[in-house]
Every structure is written in structure tokens, then in C-alpha cells.
């Protein structure tokens, strides 16, 4: 493992308390690790003028053209070909789970979201944010200004995963809130019935949104590292299940593998990027996934 890759590991990133620094650390580390940037040529360049239509931001009016032509024209930049990104984070209680008491799924999600936000802001991409549990609890309009990064990060830092979740309902609600085709980046453990969640994804796709699903599970949820007789407690419902972990591990691993595979398969069919992650994985995988998606769109 390279030095940079080593520093992109969640347990290293976790050492950085400030979320903005953490985001910078992830992104810069990520780019330093690349020998040749596949994202070369991204810049905010003038593309064309078009007539002003109500609803356009008055700040975008090209006053020089107005002076010459006495008509309102707005400048159309390359940035406008960029997609608006929405960081959609699951606020459920289960996201606060960490087996090794190091990086919880929530911490992993916000670190990743912060890094992506930083990256997008750097490229003048507008970034918005949704945080949901059973419904959307917090949101931030998408902006590409540098101040947006501070807003997003401060909101992320304030959010705490506590309640029960309804991913499907929340995503349906978000789909209704988005007016333009956007890039919806979902950070969730997707614990719940699969069918409604997939339907919510399909709905987003149907409305023209690009979707990247960052399926974040805890390391323990992927590896089931328990032994002997254990009583498992669902943090959201408080439900208890007693199992002989040693005996049950193969069954569980088979089950989780099957779940992720079926999720991946369904997402692929709907042209949704599915990124299975766990809290022991470095962040570069998630970043790569975003940038590949960004590159395809451009």
C-alpha cells in the first residue's frame, strides 16, 4: 500500500477533528495518489450567451452585453454543464453503529460526503445536501460557491444519527424536491426492505437523476466477527435475536453477500452506480466512483 493510500484509511482520517480539514486531506491525498489525473481539463470556461429568462440568477447577467445590445443576456459557463450534486445522508440510528468503536458508519459517511463536497466545490459544481431518517430532516440548497463548503460541513457536523429510518419514503420525498436533473449521492446502510428502496432509486432515475449509492456497512456487518452465543440487538427497533455466532457466521456471510449482490445487480440494471463500502475501506474507492461518474457526464 502506498503512503497516500495508507493515509486515506478511515482510521487515519478520523484523527482529524475538523471536518473541512478532513475533507481536504481526503481529496488532496486522493489526487496526490494519482499519477495522471483522468479529470484533467475541468475548468470554468465561458461557453455562450443566452437570453435571460425569469428565474435566472440576476448576478449572471452579462452587463457588458446589455450595455452593447440593451438586452439581458446571461453568460453560460462550462460550469453550467456540470451536474448539481446532492449529498443524501441517512440519519438513522443504525448509522451510528461501530463495532470496533473507531469509525462509525455515520462518521465514514460524513467524511466521504465532506470530501466529495470539497471536490465538487473545487470544480464549481453546485452541491446540495439532504439528511433524512423517516423523512427529510435537513436540506441545503445546491451552490457552487466556496462558502457552500462551509455551510455543508457545518450542517454535517451538527447532524446526529438517532431515529428510525425509511430510506424509500425519504428518497421519494427527495425526488419530488429536485427540479433539475442532478447527481444524487446516497450515503446509507440501506437496512430495510429492499424492494421499496429499489423502487425509490428507480423513481430518481426515472426523473433523470444520476444516482450513486454509497452502501456503507460497518466492518462487523460485513465480516460478522462474533463467536459463541450472542444476543444481537437492533439499535433502531430494540429487537433481540439469539444465535450461536460461530455456527451462524457462514449463513450470515452468505446472506449479506447475497443482499449486496442483488442490490448491485438491480442498480446496474437501472444504471445506478452502486458502491459497496465498509468502514474499514479507504475513501479513494468512493472518490474514484464519483469522479468516474462525473467524467462520464461531462
Amino acid at each position: 500500500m502506498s503512503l497516500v493510500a495508507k493515509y486515506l484509511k478511515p482510521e487515519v482520517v478520523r484523527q482529524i477533528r475538523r471536518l473541512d480539514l478532513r475533507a481536504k486531506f481526503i481529496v488532496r491525498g486522493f489526487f496526490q495518489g494519482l499519477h495522471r489525473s483522468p479529470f484533467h481539463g475541468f475548468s470554468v470556461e465561458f461557453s455562450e450567451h443566452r437570453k435571460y429568462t425569469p428565474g435566472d440568477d440576476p448576478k449572471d447577467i452579462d452587463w457588458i452585453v446589455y450595455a452593447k445590445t440593451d438586452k439581458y443576456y446571461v453568460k453560460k459557463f462550462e460550469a453550467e454543464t456540470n451536474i448539481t450534486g446532492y449529498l443524501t445522508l441517512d440519519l438513522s440510528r443504525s448509522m451510528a453503529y461501530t463495532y470496533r468503536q473507531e469509525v462509525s458508519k455515520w462518521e465514514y459517511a460524513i467524511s466521504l460526503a465532506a470530501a466529495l463536497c470539497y471536490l465538487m466545490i473545487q470544480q464549481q459544481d453546485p452541491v446540495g445536501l439532504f439528511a433524512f431518517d423517516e423523512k427529510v430532516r435537513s436540506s441545503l440548497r445546491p451552490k457552487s460557491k466556496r462558502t457552500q463548503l462551509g455551510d455543508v460541513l457545518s450542517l454535517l457536523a451538527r447532524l446526529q444519527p438517532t431515529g428510525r429510518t425509511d430510506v424509500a419514503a425519504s428518497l421519494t420525498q427527495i425526488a419530488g424536491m429536485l427540479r433539475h436533473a442532478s447527481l444524487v449521492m446516497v450515503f446509507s446502510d440501506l437496512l430495510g426492505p429492499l424492494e421499496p428502496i429499489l423502487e425509490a432509486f428507480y423513481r430518481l432515475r426515472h426523473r433523470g437523476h444520476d444516482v450513486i449509492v454509497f452502501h456503507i456497512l460497518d466492518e462487523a456487518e460485513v465480516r460478522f466477527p462474533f463467536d459463541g452465543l450472542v444476543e444481537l440487538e437492533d439499535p433502531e427497533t430494540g429487537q433481540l435475536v439469539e444465535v450461536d455466532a460461530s455456527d451462524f457466521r457462514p449463513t450470515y456471510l452468505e446472506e449479506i453477500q447475497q443482499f449486496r449482490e442483488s442490490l448491485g445487480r438491480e442498480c446496474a440494471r437501472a444504471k445506478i452506480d452502486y458502491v459497496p463500502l465498509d468502514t474499514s475501506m479507504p475513501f479513494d474507492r468512493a472518490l474514484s466512483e464519483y469522479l468516474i461518474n462525473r467524467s462520464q457526464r461531462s
Partner: protein
Amino acid sequence: MTFLNVSLVAGTVFIALPIILHLLLRRRPRRVEFPAIQFVRQRQLPQKRRLRIRHWLLLALRVGLIGLLSLALARPSVIFSGDWVLQEEPVAAALVFDTSVRMEYRHENQTRLEAAKQLATWLLAELPQQSEIAVLSSRAGPVAFEVDRASARERIRRLESSADSQPLPTAISRALELVQQSQQRLREIYIFTDLARSAWPSQSLAQLRPQLEKAFGLSVYLVDVGVPEPKDFGLGGLELPRQILSSRGTLIVQTQVEATGVGGACPVQLELWEEDPKTGQRSWQKREEKLCQLQPGQKEQVVFRLRGLSAGVHQGQVRIVGGDALPANDVRYFTFEVKPPWQLLLVAPDSVHLVPAFVTEALAPREFRLTGQARYDCRLIRQEELSAVDLSQYAALFLLDPQPLEDALWQKLVSYVADGHGLAICLGRNAQPMDSFLTPAAQTLLPAPLQMQVRRPDYDTYLAPADRQHPILGEFRRLSGSVPWDAFPVLCYWQLGELAKGASVIIPYTDGGPALLERVVGKGRVLMITTPLTDHTNQEPWNLLPTGDAWPYLILVNEMAAYLVGAAEQQLNYTVGQTVVMKAEATAGRRSFVITAPDGMTFTAQAEAPANQLVLTPPAVPGNYRVHSGGSPDTGFSVNLPPEHTRLDRLTPEEIDQLLGAKNVRLARSQQEINRHVSLGRVGQELFPFLIGLVACLWGVELLVANRFYKD
């Protein structure tokens, strides 16, 4: 089932511990938070069932472990009676002693009976307090529990060997009946025996075994006090072909010397109880000695022959010179009577078919006559001379193929027989016309009326003695069925009518018709044979009895003569247990006799007319008995042990198991073995080793299951 530490059985209450722990204080599994529980729940049901089964399995293992451990520490034993008893519970015990003379076998300066007494005295002290104790010997007699232990001990001390002991299984049966009457739950029979095969006759065993198998709560211990490899020279049964012989005859005494576990030279001598020619005192006079050379297990026949004996009753003994471990079989006793030669009158008609010499030569062979050894003086006369002869001087008369007799002659013969003489009528072709044989006078004498001559030309009819108990058949009895009667066919005989009162058939033919008959007339007896003994073999003979190697004919004629003169019926030698019957001189009224036993004890007995028989209860002491009566010479008889009573060959443990049933008896040889077996029988089979083994196994399984179950 019994327990050595009953209180520890209470430890089984601790089996409640795992149940309480399982149900109430059940160890909770480690609780961990786990959001992805939905993946567990879907597949958890089958495993939940498995878990529950494991829980119960573990509980069962732990309960079993504690229960078994408590049980094992209480030292349980299984008693096969099925009852729950305490080790010190009183018992009903019967101590059965084999008191046969064989138990006098001396080894290490102790007889087997003394060894048995010693062991029994020790055992008596070991029996639980309040036990009911009976002491039985193999002699017949009443059986009962002793009043107390001291009287039982005294009874044991007084036990003596005896010659009239019953078979041991009979004594055990009596003991069995006694202990089963007891109220005690534990019943024990101790049998002190040398395990000699002869003590366990198969007939008695066949009766005993079902009794033992049915007996509930009964333990039977065979205490072997015998010597594993006995060493002894012993005499077999004594045989005297003639107990009453003529002064011209030879006394033949034969026996067997048997070596058991020892070999070498064994001198055997014959002694007679007679006056010492020097001192004039009666004492044992050695008459002959034989030296036998024997290998262990070998037998040798010894035959003594004495001649020149004076008239009278003589007694003697055959004994092994020098002592050995078992004196009881070293000596055998005998009594015989010497009489002057008997006078026989043979009457035969003149006939070409008739050869009286067949009979005279059979009774007094020429060689014997010339050497003065013939038992009988035979006089042959013609039938027409009979009326003129004084019959009283003849002990017996033979009518050989008689012709019809006049009534006066029949009357004369009736008087002759009634006076105590013997008459043999050998019917043949001359007995016709048969009217003379059917007269009342003749019918007074003949066992049955003549009917007709029966021809059997097919050579398939011959003498066929069925019951050989008659004295005439005594010699044939010894030959035990090896007499070739079929080689001597009977071609013609007289068929008879209904038997007269007091008549009986001694020998029938193969076709069922009577061949030899007997009838008692007055004090004498009549023998009638329905086919002649003197037929010429070349003149269409009625039978081929005197032809070829005619030894059965010779024996038959001699035995008929001996029976008629009274030499065959008198028995002077008995075995222990036989009733002694002696013919006394005919007197009117009662006559007393004094009998002197071998040990010097005397007792009286009486004979009464008309039987004039002295009948004595079976004597229990072997030896020579003298019978005194005023006015007549002393007589006597001898009593011997049956040879099988002193045979020392032993039963093997396998044979005992086979005969008595392996479950029915326990064999012990020492105090330690008795202790062990009694403990086993009373307390039962200890289960401790088995239970501890089971505990270890359960523990191992429990560890395996628990480790797998609670692995962290």
C-alpha cells in the same frame, strides 16, 4: 439394589442445581448491538431450534452428571433378588454338610469334614445378628432352625461322617424348603462339600435345579473343602459269584483296586475271621495276598480263590495293606456259607430222544466229579423207579421230559415239595397223553395246566428274559443283556393255561408264551420249563439249547438247581442302605436273635413263623455282623459301602455351572472367597466402577458440548 452410603443418595437433590441455573439463572448470551439484524432473522429459526435442543441436551448432561456422581458416591450395588436390603440384615441360613465317608479324606492332617467344620464355625460368627441358622448333614433326619448360634455351633461340632448319607442334592432340597419357610428376606444356603462327582447324582440334581431356579431371594454358596488332586488307593465293589457254596466248591472273591492321583505298588490281602490255630482265639487270619502295580487313574482286577473251606458261615475282609488318605475304601467285607454237597435226583424215562447227560454234565461235570469239586451229587434214575425211592435225602428233584405220572406219584411229589424241597419239571414230547398232568394232584404242583404243543419251526422263538430280578437270572444279570439267546431257538413247547395261584413266569419266549415258571408249594418250590432240557439234537429236537457253545444253558441249569436247593436266594452280603433279610430256621412261634455290629454294639431282632425271616433295618455301619441264636450255629452278614460313595473324582467348576446353573450357585474355596461371594450375594454387584466410568464419559461430553456452545 443397596447402598453403602445411603445418606449420599441425598446428593441427588443437587440435580436441581443445573435445572435452576438453566431455568432461572440461565447464563445470558453476550448482548451486542447489531443493526444488520434483518439478515440474521431470516435464517435464524432453524438455528434457534438447534440451540434449544443443545440447551436441553446440556441440561440433561449436567443433571445426569450430578445424579450419577451422587449415585456413584453412595456406592450402590445390585442385588439380584430385586429387594432393597441392608448389608447387616438378618438372614435365614442353612449350613449343609456333606457327611459321607468320603469327607474322611485326610489332607494336611485334617479331614475334609474337619476343614468344613472349621470354615463353618468361622462363618457362623460372620452371619448377621438375629439370623436364623440351620445345620444339616447329608444324613436323613428332621430339619429345623437352631435355637441360637451356640446350639448351631455345638451341632456343627458334633457332625460325623456316616455311611448312609443321602445324595447331597436331597439334603439341599430339604434346606431349601426350610429357609423358604423363614420370614427373613435374605435366604442363604452354604454347602460344604468336597465336590466329588458321586455326591451329585444326576437324578437328584434334575429335581434340585428347578427348585433353585424358582427360589426367590436365595443365595447358594458351594464351599469347596475338597483337595484339588486327591491321592488314594481304593477298592471297588466286592463280588462273590457264590455266597453259599458246597464244601467242594471254590470261594471266589473279586474286586478292583483303583488308583486315584497316585501310582505304584499296592498290596491287597484277603483275611478270614477265624480261630488262630496257635492260640485258639478268633482273629483276622491272612489267607492270600496280591500285589498290584498301578498307574494313576488305573484299575486292576483282583481275584482271590479259596478252597478247602469247612462247613459253616464264614466272614472275611479284603483290605489294602497300609494306610492312605481315605481309609473308608481300603477295606471290603464279605460273608459266605459253606455247605456239604447237595444231593440231586434226576428222573428220566427211557427214550431215544432223551439225553439226561446234558443235565448231569451241566450240574456236575465229569472233571469236577473226578477232582472232587462238583457242587452237586447227581443220581439219575428211570421214571418207573421213582415210586420206590425215598426222596427226603435229596435236596431237589429234576423230572426230565416226564411221561404221565400216576396220582400217587403226584401226591408223593406234592408232599416232597411241601416239606421244603425243590422240584424241576422239564416238559417234553413224553408228556402225553396229558390227562395225567391235569389231575387235581398234578394241578396242586404244576404252575399252570398244559394245553397243547406249539410248534415254532421258523427258528424265531427263543428264551427272552425280561425282568432279571429273579435269583435264577442273577448270573445273566451280571452279563447285562449280552446273552445270545437267539442262537438257541426253541422249536416246540407246551402251551399252558391260566397260571395257578402263587405261580409266576420267570422267563417267557419271544412270542410271549411262558418258558420257565415257578410255583411255591408249602415250604418248597416248583420250577417248570415248557421245553425239555435233554432233547437229543439229532431226533427232531424241541430246542437247540444244549447245542454248540451252550454256556447260557449251563448257567440256566445250574441256577435252577441252586435256586431249588436254596443256594441262590440267600443273600449274605449287602450294601449300606439295603434292608437285610435273612432266612431263619423254621420254628413255631417267635424266635429272638442277637446281632453284634462291627463296632461291638449288640441289638436284638425277632423272626416269626410262618415267614421265619429276620428283617433288619438298613445298617449304617459297614462291616461284618454276627447273628446269634440259642441252639443253632452263629450266622452273619456283611455290609459294605457302595463303591461310588468313596470315589474321589471331582466336578469341575464348568460342570457345576452346567449341573446347577451358573446363576444359581457361587463357588468359594476360602474365607476370602466366601466373604466376597456373600457380600456380592447379600449386597449385590457394586456399580461404583461402572458409574464412575459413566460420570467420566458424561463429563467429557458435557465439556465438549459446553465448549462448543459457549465459545467466545
